[in-house]
């Protein structure tokens, strides 16, 4: 084995891959070969580092230099200057990693990473996910060995119970209790399932985990199998995640080869096998009974519970189903003990939670924070605040099932109970920031459109109710709404929540209810003033020409597709509001800033 003096870690998550990181890896190999350095420098493709906004990202160890937005042209400079001559290429360094003295800080001290505590993401961006040896070197499969050789199944369940771990997929049900229910069933055939059908738009932690650390999921599922007495597992993963599916396949093959999956694992007599099932794109399949229907080969429609899956699940057998992030915590808990996990977080929400920061925020990406960290800390300190000098308006958590949190509640701690109190939910951990340019009625309508499309159609409150709700919102954003409509919307929301069959319908009105609670004035402005305060809703927009600034150059009238602008050369022009289709072409064309939209 060669002794390697330098490691070059290149992010191979989806964000960085889309930003061309595979080409960087090829270029590194080429440049290193050229200088005959390939034996002493190793280039590794890792999972997501988290700071997706600055991708593609390259980290060079042992220095820990964090290079951001690296282009193929930059590679030869990094190899020549840094790797060969030992001079860090300062111009490519992530700004946050330099202190006042222009000295390089360690990554853990940067604003983005300082407040994070990475348990689920412990291996993402650290190891090569396609190499089982690297996972083992980082305590991988130690938890499985410990459980199979020195713990009874009940002790495994007790450990998970004692850790206080709750499901990270949305509802926050205690994981240990779920396992206990399934373990109590007397049945020779049981199943363990993993929900990797991440459908919440704007959340991508499950995918990053599968891409960055697939072995931790395999290990956790084997542990769950041992705990409840199941010998077969299924990972239900979105087909739209090709990189994740591929790495998971590689990981399963390697685990089988090493004897961590298959017959008589660690000589304990315990057998466990794992198969992948591809989801086919249906948000409702995140609901556990729908997911199992889909694995069985049917339409992914939920069914009433009870019986719960722990009693009667996949193919009618007792089944444990957990989300990817939940599983990612399990090996850590078994290996480090439940106390270490329970020390982190709040009284009722233990441990950490991964959030996907997106929207109008400087540092878009993945962060993992202790439960109870406030929303303000996440957005302002870790996320770097709202870019372009715009004003923060709301943070949306929980995706289509969640709600919008206004500025006045920014000090809300991020845990299951506190988020529910302000009308939102933890959900799977999507966190989308909105600024003054976003219309909250439009956002509510956007989420509703999503749930209308994704409703499976089995129960009436969701299928018909959501459709009607969407119509009412459409009426308001087009300027035809009345104040009575707003009351009707509220009433309808509660009917849908109370009467829908599954979690999709029960939570789908949340974006509407929370925006109504915190941003009612925006709804009212749409109705009474026929005005969209954020200037988003097209039907309510009006374009005007400011007479003082108009030079009569005719540029706007020539570009107008409907001939709505009239006026003679060198005289002030005017827009005919009846003809105007609000395309905004005139405003883009005007060089004098004479056209405004209200």
């Amino acid at each position: 084995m060669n002794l390697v003096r330098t490691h070059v870690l290149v992010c191979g998550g989806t964000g960085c891959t889309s930003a061309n990181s595979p080409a960087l890896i090829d270029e590194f190999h080429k440049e290193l070969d050229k200088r005959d350095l390939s034996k002493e420098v190793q280039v590794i493709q890792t999972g997501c580092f988290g700071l997706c906004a600055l991708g593609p990202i390259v980290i060079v160890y042992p220095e820990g230099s964090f290079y951001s937005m690296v282009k193929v042209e930059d590679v030869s400079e990094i190899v020549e200057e840094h790797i060969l001559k030992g001079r860090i290429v300062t111009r490519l360094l992530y700004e946050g990693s330099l202190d006042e003295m222009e000295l390089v800080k360690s990554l853990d001290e940067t604003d983005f990473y300082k407040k994070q505590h990475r348990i689920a993401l412990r291996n993402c961006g650290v190891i090569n996910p396609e190499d089982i040896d690297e996972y083992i070197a980082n305590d991988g499969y130690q938890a499985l060995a410990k459980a199979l050789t020195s713990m009874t199944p009940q002790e495994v369940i007790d450990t998970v119970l004692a850790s206080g771990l709750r499901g990270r997929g949305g509802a926050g049900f205690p994981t240990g209790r779920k396992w206990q229910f399934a373990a109590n069933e007397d049945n020779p055939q049981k199943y363990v399932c993993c929900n990797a059908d991440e459908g919440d738009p704007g959340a991508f932690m499950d995918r990053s985990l599968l891409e960055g650390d697939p072995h931790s999921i395999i290990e956790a599922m084997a542990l769950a199998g041992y705990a409840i007495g199941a010998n077969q597992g299924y990972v239900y993963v979105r087909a739209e995640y090709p990189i994740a599916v591929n790495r998971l396949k590689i990981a399963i093959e390697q685990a089988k080869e090493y004897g961590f999956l298959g017959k008589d694992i660690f000589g304990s007599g315990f057998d466990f096998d794992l198969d992948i099932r591809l989801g086919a794109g249906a948000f409702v399949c995140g609901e556990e009974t729908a997911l199992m229907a889909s694995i069985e080969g049917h339409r992914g429609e939920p069914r009433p519970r009870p019986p719960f899956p722990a009693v009667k699940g996949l193919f009618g057998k007792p089944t444990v189903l957990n989300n990817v992030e939940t599983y990612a915590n399990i090996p850590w808990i078994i290996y480090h003990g439940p106390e270490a996990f329970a020390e982190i977080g709040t009284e009722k929400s233990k441990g950490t939670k991964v959030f996907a920061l997106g929207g109008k925020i400087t540092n878009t990406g993945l962060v993992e924070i202790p439960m109870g960290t406030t929303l303000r800390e996440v957005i302002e300190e870790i996320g770097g605040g709202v870019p372009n000098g715009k004003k923060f308006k709301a943070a949306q958590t929980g995706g289509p099932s969640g709600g919008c949190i206004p500025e006045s509640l920014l000090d809300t701690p991020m845990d299951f109970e506190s988020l529910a109190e302000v009308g939102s939910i933890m959900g799977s951990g999507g966190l989308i920031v909105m600024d003054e340019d976003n219309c909250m009625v439009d956002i509510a309508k956007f989420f509703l459109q999503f749930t209308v499309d994704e409703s499976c159609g089995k129960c009436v409150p969701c299928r018909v109710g959501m459709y009607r709700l969407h119509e009412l919102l459409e009426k308001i954003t087009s300027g035809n709404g009345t104040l009575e409509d707003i009351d009707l919307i509220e009433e309808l929301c509660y009917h849908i929540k109370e009467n829908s069959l599954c979690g999709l319908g029960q939570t789908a009105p949340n974006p509407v209810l929370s925006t109504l609670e915190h941003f009612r004035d925006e709804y009212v402005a749409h109705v009474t003033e026929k005005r969209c305060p954020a200037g988003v809703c097209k039907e309510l927009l009006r374009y005007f020409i400011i007479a003082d600034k108009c030079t009569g150059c005719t540029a706007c009238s020539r570009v107008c597709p409907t001939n709505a602008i009239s006026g003679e050369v060198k005289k002030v022009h005017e827009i005919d509001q009846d003809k105007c289709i609000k395309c905004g072409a005139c405003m883009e064309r005007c060089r004098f800033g004479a056209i405004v939209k209200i």
Partner: protein
Amino acid sequence: MPNLKTKVSFKGTKEQEKELVDFIRAHSQDKGSMMPILQKAQEMYGYIPEEVQIIIAEETGVPLSEIYGIVSFYSQFTLNPKGKYQISVCLGTACYVKGAGDILDKVCEIIGCESGSITDDGMFSVDATRCIGACGLAPVFTVNESVYGRVDVAETEQIIKKYVAEAKGS
């Protein structure tokens, strides 16, 4: 989302049919094999028209109506073929708040077909997709395997027009 019956005539071959039938027979004993079968069909033909659904129904013994129910339920399965150039505009939340709706409108305007459909010459298809997880690059759209991130409407117009010119030349 329009997912109407296709206008494009079916061009499947005997060899494809044999491959599909062999796949179905190989998996006939597996539990829950319908999804993998449909995924195989989608991958082979690029869509699952009535002709293919009939093959699957006859081979598996599952009623055609049920197969249609499954195919139309999942967004991965399509009843329309995809264009030579497949354009997908991400309409996940992160992209939407950064103006992906305007980008989709622009793409549809240039290509001349609505979201979820294909142009008459079969060159372009446009889809609004759910989050593709590249939220750090929002707003994002893809043309076949190429990903375009951090785009605005003007840049989108340039990129799409380049493909239109390429399509005309081919």
